[in-house]
């Protein structure tokens, strides 16, 4: 096992990793920008190194400085968290080359899964269901038209290097395809430096279902059930839950099997998340593999009892999986609400000093946050300041617990999305589980 790990991140996920390391008896090194010199994740670690100014490109994403910090502190491994360098295949490759273990999949895994069209191809070749679409990257408008006519309109054009909704275009009829293709290419080029695009059937009210997997160096893979992340605003997840209210045991077995086969097909190792789209007819389609620990990993931990970060560290250290598929038992139901430092109606960022911070407590309530009274929410990074997670015997109990916990959560001095979450919890459609990825748009405009 590693003796010392550098945590190349900040905020709640840095603290989450440091906590796991402490419980494993591993020493930790925090890195920080000048804006985070007094942050909780820095104080929680055994050592700390300032790696640059506030801007993340010059600090948390500054590969030479992060690696130098790892060298001067003599760590065995680097945990990248999520965001920042976590899906940077080049960073993972450099770590490998200098003998510092990157806690995540191999650089090849990251590179392969980072190419969305390629990942689809691998999975489709294995005979697994992918969203109907172009077989690979589209070379021309003609290519696009042919593919679209084969699968039927509406279709969505996506960047192969994409993510976060950029480079995407929904096309409803053939005559709009040419212009959309060119626009998507241009946007993909300017955003990702790569004009590769592909095309898929566009589903109107799908659910976002993802499956957590664990894979060891010996090729053994288990899945830990699904997460339903359909409550999104502009492709940003806001509320997640497990089990999904629409996934029954049969569907869970099927989708789990497909997720396991998909990562096996890609010779994927470490933790990962296989994302699916579930349509109204309960057909599911592979979308992509996320090669990092996810923001919403805690809800899976709550129902399985498995500490995903510890498992990730053990896998990276070469340990075989400590669990078999039949050992994975999902108990109860778990919800997560992402608390962002934003205006709950306009979603404008709300940085500033948290004058009072008092988290909820008691049975079935978990808070993952690096905030406390007096903390400063700086404007340079992601606006998520806390994850509120509840666990109950069933969905009804975990919702009741979430409502009660949201009512207890006091964050003063800045605006947060807590009021929005309380409204979502009160929504009859949400309570019945009748949601899709379009729920929040209708909810906000309605």
């Amino acid at each position, binding site marked *: 096992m590693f003796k010392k790990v550098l945590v190349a991140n900040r905020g709640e996920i840095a603290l989450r990793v440091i906590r796991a390391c402490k419980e494993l008896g591993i020493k930790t090194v925090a890195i920080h920008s000048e804006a985070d010199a007094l942050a909780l994740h820095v104080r929680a670690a055994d050592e700390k190194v300032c790696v640059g100014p506030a801007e993340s490109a*010059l600090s948390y994403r500054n590969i030479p400085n992060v690696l*130098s910090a790892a060298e001067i502190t003599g760590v065995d491994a680097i945990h990248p968290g999520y965001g920042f360098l976590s899906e940077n295949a080049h960073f993972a490759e450099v770590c490998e080359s*200098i003998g510092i273990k990157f806690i995540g999949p191999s650089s090849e895994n990251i590179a392969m899964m980072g190419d969305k069209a390629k990942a689809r191809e691998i999975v489709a070749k294995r005979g697994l269901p992918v969203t109907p679409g172009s077989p690979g990257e589209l070379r021309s408008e003609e290519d696009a038209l042919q593919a679209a006519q084969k699968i039927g309109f509406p279709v969505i054009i996506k960047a192969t290097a994409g993510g976060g909704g950029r480079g995407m275009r929904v096309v409803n009829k053939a005559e709009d395809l040419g212009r959309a293709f060119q626009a998507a290419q241009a946007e993909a080029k300017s955003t990702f430096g790569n004009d590769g695009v592909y095309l898929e059937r566009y589903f109107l009210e799908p659910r976002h279902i993802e499956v957590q997997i664990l894979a060891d160096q010996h090729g053994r893979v288990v899945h830990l059930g699904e997460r339903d992340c359909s409550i999104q605003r502009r492709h940003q997840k806001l509320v997640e839950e497990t089990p999904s209210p629409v996934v029954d045991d049969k569907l869970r077995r099927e989708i789990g099997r497909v997720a396991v086969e998909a990562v096996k097909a890609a010779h994927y190792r470490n933790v990962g998340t296989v994302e699916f789209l579930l349509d109204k007819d309960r057909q599911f389609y592979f979308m992509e593999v996320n090669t990092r620990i996810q923001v919403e990993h805690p809800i899976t931990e709550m129902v399985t009892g498995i500490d995903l970060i510890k498992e990730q560290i053990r896998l990276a250290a070469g340990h075989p999986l400590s669990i078999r598929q039949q050992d994975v038992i999902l108990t109860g139901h778990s919800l997560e609400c992402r608390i962002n430092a934003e205006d709950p109606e306009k979603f404008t960022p709300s940085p500033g000093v948290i004058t009072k911070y008092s988290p909820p407590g008691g049975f079935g309530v978990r808070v993952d946050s690096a905030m406390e009274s007096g903390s400063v929410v700086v404007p340079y990074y992601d606006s998520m300041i806390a994850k509120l997670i509840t666990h109950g015997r069933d969905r009804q109990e975990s919702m009741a617990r979430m409502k009660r916990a949201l009512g207890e959560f006091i964050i003063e001095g800045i605006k947060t999305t807590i009021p929005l979450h309380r409204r979502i919890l009160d929504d009859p459609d949400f309570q019945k589980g009748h949601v899709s990825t379009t729920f929040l748009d209708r909810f906000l405009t309605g």
Partner: protein
Amino acid sequence: MSRRRSVPSKSRTRRIVLPDAGDEPVHEASLTGGSAKQIQELIDLLRQNNLTELEFERQGIRIRVRHELLARPLATSAQDSVPTPPQQPMHSASAATSVSDASTGFVTVTSPIVGTFYRSPSPDADPYVEEGESVKKGQVLCIVEAMKLMNEIESEVDGRLVKILVESTKSVEYGQALFLIDPKAAS
């Protein structure tokens, strides 16, 4: 602002694949409007409130504004209301590697990268510079080794080296103070 040059290390024990550190715009960023404004607010606060010292400390931000009594004769009392500029605000988004301290007039040379500090080009060589010596703008003061690349840190002012703040072979973090230079003592 000091400059650094990357030179290959003599001891290449590990193969490395790295983007050239010199290409990174590490020291190109300027002081952000946000933090400059906050500092100005503190200065105004100090001026308005007739204080000698004002310290502002919050998670993620630590700013200290202090008036050094020794720097100039005082008008009336210790409660002089004229503030001095802030001493190297830690929250500054600028990767400035030289900061002038108005109370002493000294320039602080800080490390623009994370790495290991060496006072000489090789273990058996003489140090680049000693305390009390004169330095010229562009003169190499030390090396900070990062990922087996030797980055030479140059002075960007003429002056006298007042103080070496870090021992040779010790590791340094981004923004860590390395030297104090007195530019008024330029020969």
